[in-house]
């Protein structure tokens, strides 16, 4: 089992969700985050005060998938989240030791 974590641009959420549903991934967790990589922030000016804002709003998507489809999931996220502009985001894949469905008690692949 793998935990696939993707940081994407917020407006791409729906596209990514639809693409993942199409390959059989039916659940995800989404958090609003801020971050930066190579994308520069912007400057805000309030009366006389100027602030350089480095952190940009992003979304963090987490999905737990069977190891066999992890690569496919990464591919699908990449193609649906890409715009070609700097700041598209990154995807990280880490192994999952255990998984459990709280309601039924199912474990590991049955919990995904």
């Amino acid at each position, binding site marked *: 089992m793998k935990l696939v974590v993707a940081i994407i641009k917020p407006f791409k959420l729906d596209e990514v969700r639809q693409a993942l549903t199409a390959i059989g991934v039916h659940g995800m967790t989404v958090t609003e985050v801020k971050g930066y990589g190579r994308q520069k922030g912007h400057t*805000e000016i*309030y*009366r*006389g*005060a100027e*602030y350089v*804002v480095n952190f940009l709003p992003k979304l963090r998507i987490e999905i737990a998938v069977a190891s066999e489809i992890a690569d496919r999931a990464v591919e699908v996220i990449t193609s649906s989240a890409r715009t070609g502009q700097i700041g598209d985001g990154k995807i990280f894949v880490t192994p999952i030791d255990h998984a459990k469905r709280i309601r039924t008690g199912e474990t590991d692949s049955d919990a995904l």
Partner: protein
Amino acid sequence: MGVLSSRAAAKIAAATSVAATSALATPALAETSAINAADTAWMIVATALVLMMTIPGLALFYSGMVRKKNVLATMAQSLAAVATISILWVMFGYSLAFVGDGPWLGTLDRWFLAGMDMDSVNPAARTIPESLFMLYQMTFAIITVALVAGSVADRMRFSAYLLFSIGWFVFVYVPLAHWVWGGGFLASMGVLDFAGGLVVHLSAGIGGLVAAKVMGRRHGYGSENMSPFDLSLAVLGTGLLWVGWFGFNGGSALAANSRAVMAITATHLAACAGALTWGAIEWATRRKPSVLGMISGAVAGLGTITPASGFVAPWHGIVIGVVAGLVCFWACTWLKHRFDYDDSLDVFGVHGIGGMTGTLLAGVFAVNAIGGTAGLIEGHARQVLIQLYGVAVTLVWSGGVTYALLKIVGVLVPLRVSLQQELEGLDISQHGEALQ
């Protein structure tokens, strides 16, 4: 008319004329007949409009511009101003400001509104009940006190704020209101201040500046990102202030008449011109007109026209609004950086400088036919000097007393919150609450 017999009609007519004659003969009733229903109705509305300027107008305007962790505390300052100043006004503030016309202070004849009844009128406003005049003036005292706090937003201890605002009300506002509006020495000199360029805006502005200097800068000022929590709150607040100002300046005519409408027209135009001017400057110098800039320009226009609104021609409002936009923009940017003070919400830059400018411009643009006094444009150049005198007195009195007051209050309780409390935020540290 055909229903009554001619004899019955004659009897009724006779009875009515006798009643009318005796009514006129009785002094108390003669005084009551001076109270005008139209004026009273308008002034009740104006009173409500001005109270609305503080809550929620100023509360929203200010809170939208501070950081999230201080939003509730900033609103608390406006709420507290309403609650404390209202009661103090009724206790002795009104009396000392508006009853009796000694040069320095009024009397305590109306301590707790003693002697004020259904028929009383204040000589300053004979066509409305005295209680209404008192209530209307109360709303001015409230907003002036609430304004000062803007300079030291994000760092003043609530207990210190309460003590300071009570003292400021007693020792700055009440005397100044008496001097300018209550028949005191500035009024006798002919200083023109229609609705509070000196009494409200300049006094609050210089008080705020002194407080900002005495209390020092916010932690992280100049390096940390202190962007506004939610400018949409500030925009809503501006709307309430703008509309409320119709009561602030329009109501200062103390009557439902043309002068009130002239004042409102000048006021509205000044707000519009101020907003456009500030926006234009930003567009030209920074490539984008900001929303904060437009609302700041509007408020600058409103504050600046305030002392002049009942004395100038309505179209002068446009000129004064443009000047306000220019001068206040300069004050909030260049001046603030040049002298490096943390006037957090630009009370001095907008209200202080605006009030000062407007007071002087009143001396320039006053039209005799509108307000009974001629200004520079009608050949009475001396009026500008009289206005300057009023400005100087206000600066010295408000500035000096504010300084002394802060020092005294500072002995009783620390003016600032601790560094830890400032970092944590005033909402949590002063009030035990947080926006989620």
